[in-house]
């Protein structure tokens, strides 16, 4: 049986409530209402289940796709802690090196740290082998690291996008150890909404502007319906010379761009009552 960690529940007034659920200490007359434990058969598993529940939410929307002129990477910028929006200005697209990008979904700290770590490893590979690392190699390095931490609570759902000698490359890597090569991915709680718009509008041959606009629209629609996504949409393009940020637009403004306010026709005009 796991030893319950009560430290969070301890107050100045004494230990948390026991079975009686009510007031335990009467310290100097000030009665501290004791916290109630949830009434469940297995409290130990309850804590683990709560962690699981919150973890898998991955409140975010990120997407990336390959087209004939390279890779488009886009993401929202909202960070949420349950129902609380902790930030609307999170940078979810991480620049690993001038020709490779990573997206962040899941635990912000985990994603940021491991992406920077990956950047270090990529640079060392370059120096040792006198050639840039391929997107395949970089994603494999990250996937192997995450696999070795499997089960220890890392929460990372990332896409590694870049341009190497073999052309554009896109891989999905997550903290369960999965690593998938693909042409279109969307990760996060809003990914379902983004997928519908993305899959509907996707063509392999597109101009960079068209592709960027498709990505922007897809993320915007995800932020419209998913509460855990919002803030601004960042869109990047990775071409043969490296990545370039195409745009960063607030979703509120995008909304009125896509759906401008319709002037409703006046049904009845109020006229001044004639005085006579």
């Amino acid at each position, binding site marked *: 049986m796991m030893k319950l960690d009560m430290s969070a529940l301890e107050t100045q007034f004494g230990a948390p409530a026991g079975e009686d659920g009510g007031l335990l200490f009467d310290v100097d007359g000030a009665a501290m209402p004791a916290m109630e434990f949830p009434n469940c058969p297995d409290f130990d598993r309850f804590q683990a289940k709560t962690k699981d529940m919150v973890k898998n939410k991955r409140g975010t929307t990120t997407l990336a796709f390959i087209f004939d002129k390279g890779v488009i990477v886009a993401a929202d910028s909202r960070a949420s802690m349950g129902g609380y929006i902790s930030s609307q200005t999170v940078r979810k697209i991480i620049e690993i090196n001038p020709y490779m990008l990573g997206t962040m979904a899941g635990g912000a700290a985990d994603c940021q740290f491991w992406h920077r770590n990956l950047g270090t490893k990529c640079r060392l590979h370059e120096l040792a082998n006198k050639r840039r690392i391929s997107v395949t190699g970089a994603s494999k390095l990250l996937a192997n690291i995450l696999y070795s931490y499997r089960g220890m609570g890392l929460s990372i759902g990332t896409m590694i996008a870049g341009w190497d*000698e073999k052309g554009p490359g896109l891989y999905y890597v997550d903290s369960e150890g999965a690593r998938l090569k693909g042409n279109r991915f969307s990760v996060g709680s809003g990914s379902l909404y983004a997928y519908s718009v993305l899959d509907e509008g996707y063509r392999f041959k597109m101009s960079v502007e068209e592709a960027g606009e498709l990505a922007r629209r897809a993320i915007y629609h995800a932020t419209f319906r998913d509460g855990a996504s919002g803030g601004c949409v960042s869109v990047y393009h990775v071409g043969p010379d490296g990545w370039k940020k195409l745009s960063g637009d607030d979703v509120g403004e995008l909304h009125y761009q896509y759906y401008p306010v319709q002037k409703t026709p006046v049904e009845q005009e109020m006229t001044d009552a004639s005085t006579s």
Partner: protein
Amino acid sequence: MARYDRAITVFSPDGHLFQVEYALEAVRKGNAAVGVRGSDTVVLGVEKKSTPKLQDSRSVRKIARLDDHIALACAGLKADARVLINRARVECQSHRLTVEDPVTVEYITRYIAGLQQKYTQSGGVRPFGLSTLIVGFDPYNDKPALYQTDPSGTFSAWKANATGRNSNSMREFLEKNYKETSGKETVKLAIRALLEVVESGGKNIEIAVMTKKDGLRELEESEIDEYVAEIEAEKAAAEAAKKGAPKDA
């Protein structure tokens, strides 16, 4: 047990690592090996000392394959070679697993050289007593490559090189006669270099040829004999031409 932790390779007062130099001596006593890089072919050749009658010569292969596109020949202590080759083979596969790409010739050479260096700076071990010649094709740019490592752990790339017994004469020959070659000419150059120090004949030489398309191929004795015959014919013709010229003049 503490006695075995003392380094075996220590500096001498005048800056030498005697164990490494003794290892180089062991290399100089090993069989001759030559490597030649052509524009589309790389060739490894090794001297085959006369095999005892009862020995199965097929079990004494001197040229080892590290991966589909990399091969290695060495001179020196064969048992040390076995260990080094096994570690290199594992590293080739490990590299494929971690970066999903085959090794470059430079990478695996660097690994083998690094291993050899480690054993000159660790407690209780002696250096590997062999020099290797590593050939192969880079998976990225299809360029042929030839590298050499030695017991001290240094490595460098070569157009053609020799190691083992009489390597100096072979290297002199190669320096005099090297030119950019391809295909069969590269093989001939390697065999000619070996024939400088080895008794003529297919049963005293082992040759392996690697091309980008066909990978590594060991030549049959009969094929080697053909090459040798060609070379001897060319030599005879050259001799005759030399003798003939002054008379005409």
